[in-house]
């Protein structure tokens, strides 16, 4: 059994990140609904976001929060519903966290810089 303290802290982190995500998702959902109103095009997206620091910071926070929140959740599910060992689920959690961070930042950095090349 994993450490009580670690488990408790993971729980706290998941709830904290959920609270942050709550705000992010509201804003994000608002934005997509607004954005899809007249059909998306890549150019549009990019013009809207590239070089916009505020936008970048917002999504950086979003990604960090998801990278904390989702892997912890996935780990719980794996612990409860599969036969994977606790060690294994811990590794999955860490890998998922990394994947989200790397891919997330790759995407927003890309979008942020894309405008410059237009």
């Amino acid at each position, binding site marked *: *059994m994993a*450490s*009580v*303290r670690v488990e408790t802290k993971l729980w706290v982190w998941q709830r904290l990140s959920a609270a942050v995500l709550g705000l992010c998702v509201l804003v994000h959902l608002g934005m997509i609904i607004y954005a899809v109103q007249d059909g998306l095009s890549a150019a549009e997206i990019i013009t809207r976001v590239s070089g916009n620091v505020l936008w970048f910071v917002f999504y950086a926070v979003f990604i960090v929060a998801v990278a904390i929140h989702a892997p912890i959740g996935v780990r719980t599910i794996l612990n409860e519903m599969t036969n994977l060992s606790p060690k294994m689920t811990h590794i999955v959690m860490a890998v998922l966290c990394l994947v989200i961070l790397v891919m997330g930042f790759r995407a927003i950095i890309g979008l942020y810089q894309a405008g410059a090349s237009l």
Partner: protein
Amino acid sequence: MSNTIQVSVWRGAEEGAFETFEVPRQPSQTVLDVITYIQRNIDPTLSYRFACRVGVCGSCAMTVNGRPRWTCRTHVDKVAGDGTLQVAPLRNLQVVKDLACEMTEFFDKMNRAEGKFHPTKTRDDDFDFIKPDDKKRKQASAGIECIGCGVCYAACDIVDWNKDYLGPAALNRAWTLVNDERDGGNDVRLAAVAGDAGCHACHSQQGCVEHCPKHLSPTHSIAGLKRETAKAALKGLLGGDD
């Protein structure tokens, strides 16, 4: 209304099968009475557990039509609308035989959750002054009438999925004690109920609340523990990694 009911009853232990009996309907008839009728009149080898017959001891809980219930206070009308009844032993516990379960693990978990009083005074002292409308006293009172029937324990999927999980009843008891101002055991108790065998494993499924025959709310007791243990963890009070 037909004047008999078809009752299928679990026979065997972990391995077993349902067996069907036909039992006459009575105006005043609980599920326990139906089971008793079978044992007294049809199959004398049927095993089941009961004691008080009035919802006090929590010995008679079984799975009735798929739901955990106390049987001594479940009127047949409430559960056998279609004239059939399926009775099985309580889920998540080891079956002794037929409908009787072994509850040792359930009680061990009460103990593991430090669900026992840690005294700070002795028999030579007077009663503490505690006002009935004191906030903590009220919180303690909210969960104190648990009869340990195991219904909530059977209604919770986490108990099934996570064998170490202490379960709603034990955690509810722990929360009652956390709010008991006379108790001196909260350091050990919070460490005992934190983590993935304790309160943090609960996903608020609320099957416990839905089924508790005493209308208690283990979910909210557990939520209380989540908050208190999290605070303790952040303050570094839960001790080192074990």
